[in-house]
């Protein structure tokens, strides 16, 4: 394969190379320009969907309430969902870890002697790295969402949860298709490129033994799996192959069917600025006797993978309100500067920063929460009002304070640094004491000429900070 390689291999080791990867993108004017353009596009599309601030705010409040209500009842709803799905003929499986989830999925594949699995867009399947596991087991796993297909051809990972190939230009995709799809001439006409993908993947839908999908909402009262999409590949994956396997995180559940319309409206309007997606697909059972198509077997895999840890804490539980619209990344000035790959996690951007520590532990993600200016743009647009900046502050605390007994999070204290903690203690001692502060600030202004000319990080693109010759309190005293 001669697909282009990204400069830094992408595996789940987020914190380690984060700054280096971010720097690579920030120093690439071409990428900077293209992310900015893409995010501007998505922001303006969303804004056009919410012309009435009152409607938006009340709908967000309703969305938040629905998510919090359902999370509060989560254990009961999971049991209800399981019972109704089972009654409908859908087989339910539970996995605590990515390994368990992969084993369940591959077990089903092997039972059917499957050779090819076509995949609809599923971030959870990315989270468990299903494609690697399937390949290792000799089962082809083919992405069918156009963006995911492109990213898979390039041996990369999605850089955005809604627009996986947002980092690629049509010219790059043209080259990728020309070099990797047999018999395809170079063309950078977007319609032609989509046709190429369509033709390749149609044959795969026809041949596939297994269709895999994610789930946007699982409805407990009816035992229904809901999928949101525009392309039709999700419907293909869930209808054409003889077996459908859906995978979802345990949090994506609502009790009532009527909880779906407001969440769907918030999701599509926030994500891509559509008033609704092209398809909204509700699956409640496998093929019934007499029906002529649809899979004979439907499975649902419920994955924990750290979600129960977030659930255990009242504040962190809000992380699980997420409906995966991606608006937080579209509006994030950091994501806009560095793109999705720099994060090194399956979920990039603000939501990635708050969910990944539960999946991967704070050891692997200790520094990610610092990559935010806490500007609040994410929290402002979140359709279910997740207080993302507050959660980032909480994660900083969990990471940097000294390890203690009974931590709420895996890897608590992983970012602890005795020197930094000592600096903050000293800072606190000075600023909590009027006398010490008076003395310290007087010294700083008196000896301002001693201020270093090089100040870590700051002076790489700014002139040095220097206290004023006289403090405000001095000027006040000197007033006539």
């Amino acid at each position, binding site marked *: 394969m001669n697909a282009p390689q990204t400069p830094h291999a992408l595996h789940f080791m987020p914190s380690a190379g984060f700054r280096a990867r971010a720097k690579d993108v920030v120093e690439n004017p071409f990428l900077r320009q293209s992310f900015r353009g893409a995010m501007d596009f998505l922001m303006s599309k969303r804004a056009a969907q919410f012309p009435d601030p009152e409607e938006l705010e009340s709908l967000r409040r309703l969305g938040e309430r629905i998510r919090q209500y359902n999370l509060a009842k989560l254990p009961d709803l999971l049991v209800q969902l399981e019972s109704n799905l089972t009654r409908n003929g859908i087989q339910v499986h539970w996995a605590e870890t990515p390994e368990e989830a992969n084993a369940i999925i591959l077990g089903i594949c092997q039972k059917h002697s499957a050779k090819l699995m076509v995949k609809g867009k599923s971030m959870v399947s990315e989270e468990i790295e299903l494609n690697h596991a399937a390949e290792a087991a000799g089962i082809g796993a083919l992405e069918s969402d156009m963006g995911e297909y492109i990213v898979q051809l390039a041996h990369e990972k999605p850089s955005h949860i809604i627009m996986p190939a947002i980092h690629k230009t049509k010219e790059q995709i043209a080259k990728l298709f020309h070099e990797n799809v047999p018999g395809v001439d170079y063309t950078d006409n977007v319609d032609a490129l989509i046709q190429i993908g369509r033709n390749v993947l149609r044959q795969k839908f026809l041949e596939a033994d297994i269709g895999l999908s994610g789930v946007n909402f699982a409805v407990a009262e009816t035992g229904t799996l809901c999928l949101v999409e*525009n392309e039709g590949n999700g419907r293909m994956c869930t209808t054409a192959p003889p077996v459908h396997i859906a995978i979802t995180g345990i949090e994506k559940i609502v009790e009532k069917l*009527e909880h779906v319309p407001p969440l769907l409206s918030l999701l599509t309007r926030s994500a891509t600025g559509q008033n609704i997606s092209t398809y909204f*697909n509700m699956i409640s059972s496998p093929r019934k006797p007499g029906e002529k198509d649809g899979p004979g077997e439907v499975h649902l895999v419920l994955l924990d993978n750290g979600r129960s840890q977030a659930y255990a804490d009242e504040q962190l539980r809000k992380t699980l309100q997420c409906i995966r619209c991606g608006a937080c990344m579209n509006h994030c000035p950091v994501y806009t500067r560095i793109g999705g790959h720099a994060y090194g996690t399956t979920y990039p951007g603000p939501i990635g920063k708050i969910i990944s520590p539960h999946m991967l532990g704070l050891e692997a993600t200790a520094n990610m929460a610092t990559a935010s200016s806490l500007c609040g743009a994410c929290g402002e647009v979140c359709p279910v009002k997740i207080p993302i900046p507050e959660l980032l502050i909480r994660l900083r605390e969990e990471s940097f304070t000294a390890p203690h007994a009974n931590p709420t999070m895996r890897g608590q204290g992983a970012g602890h640094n005795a020197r930094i903690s000592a600096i903050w203690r000293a800072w606190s001692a000075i600023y909590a004491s009027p006398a010490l502060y008076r003395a310290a600030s007087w010294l700083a202004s008196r000896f301002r000429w001693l201020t270093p000319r090089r100040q870590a990080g700051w002076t790489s693109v700014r002139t040095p900070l220097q206290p004023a010759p006289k403090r405000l309190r001095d000027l006040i005293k000197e007033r006539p």
Partner: protein
Amino acid sequence: MSARDRILAKLKATAPESAGDLPDVGGWYADHRTQESTADKAKRFRHFIELAHAEVYSVSRGGWLQKLYEVLSAKQIDKLLVAPGTVHGARAQSDLPPLGIACPGYDTPIENWKPAMFNDTPAGFTAARGAIAETGTLILWPNADEPRLMSLVPPVHIVLLDAANIYNTFHEAMQTEGWQDGLPTNSLLISGPSKTADIQQTLAYGAHGPKELVVLMIEENV
């Protein structure tokens, strides 16, 4: 202990004591969405689904077959997949072949003819159960007579819709019809032809599903 029991035990141990009252979804819709007349709903439905690149034709209760024929002729389609077990499918199957349009019926399980469905079926004809004005959305409940792939695999999907069955909102549709009491194997909302913007945010139609979506909308005053 199984993974199931461990997950549930963890959640139960930490779940809040009360979830509070049920969210007032109905109240929100009552406050924020208006009830429109059938004609206005039809207009709104048409506006939004046309924005999503669908073609809509108003037809009379007796005139839809003629329009169906015209649409197929204009697109130079000479083969239409129909559902013979339905009234509209049977009508098409009896009236169109003499006009030069073959109308194979979807009357055998897909396993018997999958390659032909994927490679040799230019258009499919189904009815819609209803529609949603707010978003320009068709509601389809495929069944044994009119199976799921008819509205997905053929490159052109033609839908017969009775404008009397258009709801203001998705919420109104499910509440009025009592969907919570039982959903079919598969229920669908379709709001345009298949599309993608995955390459440089450039919109392209016909990603995996139909490239063209045609709605024949039966209206009383036509």
